[in-house]
């Protein structure tokens, strides 16, 4: 067996691969947070709860009306995205003139409501969601056995992340969005309906979280607490990456997942805290974050 620095390379890579799957979810979630923060200037605390809602909706679609994985990969984000649009219209849009902290507090309240309701309905134990038939099975990679579904998660979220980045950087609508982030009043004076743009951006960011939730459903069990467990790590990811750059948040997400995976093999007790330790180090050396602009 190949050795690197005294560690077996096989299990190390296997753990790294598992970490990459977590990283895929971190990337999707921190991407959504960054897009929302860019335009709305609020930290969407409900992001984790809406990630969970995506998984729960796909579970309900399957078990209550028999809609399978592939359609729900589209339908669940649409439903949760519509909920997000409603949320923005009714509540969040009223808070833009106030201190940013109120947006955080409001979305925290929303997160508590969504999680509490889910726990009432489904209890705290997880509900299994079967891997779709077309993605069953596994491939032998020499150093590990790679379940097809997990490979799909990494590839699909990578593609979605890169597409989002391309939309933001290379299309006219992305250009409008970036312009509105810089100066909303000016963009509005050019005849762009900025409030609608803001609403749709929030909806899209939330839909991304729900998409991640649907993909997470077969990996972790569908569980009302799955969102809150992941969102705090994602906050640390966002602090490390800095929210100035979309590509930065994608890279940081995948990178930290990988790092967590390696730590699980090298020093298992540390895997829960490695992201936080890295956050502390980054804050001491580069307070604005790896990709952030100094404000």
């Amino acid at each position, binding site marked *: 067996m190949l050795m690197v620095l005294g560690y077996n390379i096989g299990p190390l890579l296997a753990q790294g691969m598992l970490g990459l799957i977590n990283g895929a979810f971190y990337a999707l979630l921190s991407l959504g947070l960054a897009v929302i923060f860019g335009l709305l200037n609020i930290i969407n605390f409900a992001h984790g709860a809406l990630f969970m809602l995506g998984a729960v909706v796909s579970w309900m679609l399957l078990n209550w009306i028999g809609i399978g994985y592939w359609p729900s990969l589209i339908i669940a984000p649409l439903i949760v995205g519509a909920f997000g649009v409603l949320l923005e219209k009714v509540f969040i849009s009223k808070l833009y003139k106030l201190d940013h902290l109120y947006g*955080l507090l409001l979305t925290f*309240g929303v997160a508590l409501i969504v999680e509490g309701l889910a726990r*009432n309905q489904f209890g705290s134990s997880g509900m299994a969601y079967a891997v779709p038939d077309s993605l069953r099975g596994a491939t032998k990679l020499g150093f590990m056995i790679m379940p097809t579904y997990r490979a799909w998660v990494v590839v699909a979220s990578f593609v979605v992340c890169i597409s989002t980045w391309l939309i933001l950087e290379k299309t006219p609508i992305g250009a409008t969005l970036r312009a509105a982030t810089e100066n909303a009043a000016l963009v509005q004076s050019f005849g762009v309906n900025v409030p609608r743009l803001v609403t749709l951006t929030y909806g899209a960011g939330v839909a991304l979280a729900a998409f991640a939730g649907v993909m997470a459903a077969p990996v972790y069990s569908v569980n009302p607490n799955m969102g809150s467990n992941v969102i*705090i790590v994602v906050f640390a990811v966002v602090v490390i990456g800095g929210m100035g750059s979309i590509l930065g948040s994608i890279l940081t997400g995948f990178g930290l997942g990988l790092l967590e995976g390696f730590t699980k093999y090298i020093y298992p007790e540390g895997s829960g805290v490695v992201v936080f330790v890295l956050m502390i180090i980054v804050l001491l050396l580069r*307070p604005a974050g790896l990709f952030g602009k100094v404000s």
Partner: protein
Amino acid sequence: MIWSFSRPQLLALVVMLAVIGIAPAFVYPVFLMKVMCFALFACAFNLLIGYVGLLSFGHAAYFGMGAYVSAYAAKSWGLSAEICVLLGGLVGAGLGVVFGAIAIRRQGIYFSMITLALAQFTYFLCTQLPFTGGEDGIQQVPRAALLGFISMKPDMAIYWMTAGVFLIGFLAIFRIIHSPFGQVLKAIRENEPRAISLGYRVDDYKLIAFTLSTFVAGCAGGMKSLVFGIASLTDVTWQASGEIVLTTLLGGLGTIFGPVIGAVITNTLEFYLAPFGSWVTVTQGVIFVLCVMLFRRGVVGEIAAKTKVSL
């Protein structure tokens, strides 16, 4: 006025003292002690959010650590009650000075996210450090004697001690807010660049305020673990951090008596909603949304605005 209390504030203080004195005749004392511990915790939190404008979303770390250390000191070292509570406060402050120094490197929303992440870091440490007892926590903590010889076993004995700790903390925070130091804190809240241009070392002020706040939070946690005889992971969770934000917001950010009223309301709600399981969480969420949307000044803040007095 005495100690820079205004007339209405003095009146409110007298009412509060009277309630503390009379209430145990009508209400279960252990419940009242819980309210006072959380009220003190909320006052400590309010010192930051209300007077420096820093939203710490991880204050449970200091409260919970204070609870652990105080419980450990009472159970394993057999120290007297007031030393246990002070140790809780010191450890809270020790953690606070380190975490505060890291968190104040960023402003606004980032500050909140960093404090939350550091609190979660503490939570993970508490699940693994040997002295915290992991999932079981530290159980059957004896009610250590005050000064080593005044027994705290009867509920009413420890009730008066809790009331004492609460009042000392409450008055200390009141004093801090109205000191020249407190005025600088308010200046930082209102306009940080201007405070810097006036020559104040803003970061030093923030760090001192953060440390003071975490000291009081640690004392509150230490007192709580002596009252209930247990320190557990519940007190270190992000939910506990969220609850104290809610308590303070509901009572009124930046008011003297708001956190106390907030603690009374949230603990009463929790008590009556406890049989309904997760509805507690849902209710808390709804109150959050209502507070942010409809009355951002909180209960005491609204009363103060209506009557045009500062409470």
